[in-house]
């Protein structure tokens, strides 16, 4: 039993190894892996098919050969020494303090006196997946905590690691429900754009700028003809739903009509950089968010700009972002600090900030002739999250609730209160492996 206040030590079990088969293929896990172990002369008595993990006995040299051969056969197999965990008797504490005991153990079997060719000393071998680490996200050095726009990329694209990802949102439909879109913007020439207006008496052309800016962040180019790249999901299909008029105002009827349209068009991501500074949860968005998730569509919305933090007012998440089935997005600045205006979690179900995105001094597209504009707001953070959601949807195939969970799980934790940034800074998926 694990006793949280007890010191403990870790030791290597000589001659015993844990073999991890990194596969999602059920046939591999149920038959392929144990057959392979048997052919290699190992016992499958302690093979756990649901985990794809075996504990076997063998000499370190034999295990090294096994690892090498597995790599040569392009099998994703990792071999590490089995460890034992010992609670230290409080009255007869061993000489090693707890921290030293942990530090002294892995990597082994080198620590257990094994040869230099021990398998755990081969982490650089292609195809070797270290157990315990997600092979899709290799452990990296400390993530940078400060960014700046360069000639190539906005700070926001750098912070969410969009380009490194390699994914572009190809095959994913992103609906941005806002003030429409500048359909003649040169940065989007040749892009697949579907535009529709739900505002009476106005076409889908953006007469405000807000919509064009948000679409630019979510789905704009990473390598435009002029200026720096600014779009997260540069390969996604764009659905520009005009639900706010050129004066910037809209109603539930227009916004909900836009969500309905996004669902009818199978948009996997719906970005809504809009809201009202109202604390009370608005029932229609509870219904809409839930039914969207059931139909494989994730709605992300701006937490709100009602904080004045320097004046001691942290604000609150307004509607529709405070609905339990709508993912609420707060804003951080280029030093990954909370933005002055970014609203804090509201007490009650659904009122939390779920994630944070770049939302201060965000450069993106603007209706011609200005072409570009740099502005701030949780409205600018939201399409960063929507764009990353498209990349993750492409990379993983996840939709709806699973996509929500993946976004939250993969976010970079920040040294900030969760009431301000939820699970932290949204991050793009790591590059695909061969």
């Amino acid at each position, binding site marked *: 039993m694990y006793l949280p206040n007890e010191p403990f030590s870790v030791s290597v079990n000589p001659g015993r190894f844990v073999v991890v088969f990194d596969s999602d293929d059920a046939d591999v896990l149920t038959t392929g892996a144990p057959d392979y172990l048997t052919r290699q002369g190992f016992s499958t008595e302690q093979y756990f098919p649901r985990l794809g993990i075996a504990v076997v006995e063998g000499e370190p040299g034999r295990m090294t050969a096994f690892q090498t051969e597995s790599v040569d056969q392009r099998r994703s197999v990792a071999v590490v020494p089995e460890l034992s965990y010992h609670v230290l008797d409080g009255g007869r504490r061993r000489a090693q303090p707890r921290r030293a005991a942990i530090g002294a153990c892995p990597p082994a079997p080198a620590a257990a006196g094994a040869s230099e060719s021990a398998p755990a000393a081969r982490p650089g071998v292609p195809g070797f997946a270290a157990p315990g680490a997600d092979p899709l996200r290799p452990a990296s050095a400390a993530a940078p905590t400060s960014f700046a726009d360069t000639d190539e990329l906005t700070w926001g694209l750098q912070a969410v690691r969009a380009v490194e990802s390699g994914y572009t949102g190809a095959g994913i439909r992103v609906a941005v429900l806002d*003030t429409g879109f500048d359909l003649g913007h040169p940065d989007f020439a040749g892009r697949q754009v579907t535009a529709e207006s739900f505002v009476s008496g106005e076409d889908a052309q953006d007469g405000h700028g807000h919509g064009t800016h948000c679409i630019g962040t979510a789905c704009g180019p990473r390598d435009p003809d002029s200026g720096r790249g600014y779009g997260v999901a540069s390969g996604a299909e764009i659905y520009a739903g005009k639900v706010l008029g050129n004066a910037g105002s809209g*109603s539930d009827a227009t*916004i909900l009509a836009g969500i309905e349209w996004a*669902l009818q068009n199978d948009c996997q991501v719906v970005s809504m*950089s809009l809201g009202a500074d109202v604390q009370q949860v608005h*029932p*229609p968005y509870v219904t*809409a968010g839930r*039914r969207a998730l059931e139909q494989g569509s994730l709605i992300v919305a701006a937490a709100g700009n009602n904080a004045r933090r320097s004046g001691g007012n942290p604000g609150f998440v307004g509607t529709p972002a405070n609905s339990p089935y709508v993912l609420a997005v707060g804003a951080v600045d280029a030093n990954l600090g909370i933005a002055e205006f970014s609203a804090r979690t509201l007490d009650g179900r659904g009122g939390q900030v779920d994630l944070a995105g770049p939302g201060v001094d965000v450069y993106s597209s603007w209706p011609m002739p200005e072409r570009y504009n740099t*502005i701030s707001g949780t409205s600018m953070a939201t399409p960063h999250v929507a764009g990353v959601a498209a990349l993750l949807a492409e990379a993983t195939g996840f939709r709806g609730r699973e996509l929500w969970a993946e976004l939250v799980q993969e976010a970079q934790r920040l040294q900030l209160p969760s009431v301000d940034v939820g699970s932290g800074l949204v991050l793009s998926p790591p590059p695909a492996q061969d």
Partner: protein
Amino acid sequence: MRVVEWVVSVDDAHVGRVDDVAAALEGAGLAVESVLSALGIICGRADASCADALQRIEGVASVAPGQPVRLDPPDSPVQ
């Protein structure tokens, strides 16, 4: 008499019969403007005093007054 926008959510049991619920809401005084079948939501206009009458219609989960949303002007540094 003060006519306002109402947003009516249909319960899960009636989400496949949104048109029937909309017709019943019409009978209770709602001038239906949109029926959103994928969402199970009906928008329309009726007198501000109609909420209770609309809420009593079979298949209605919630009745909420429409809420306006307004962005800051385009030249605002924070949006």
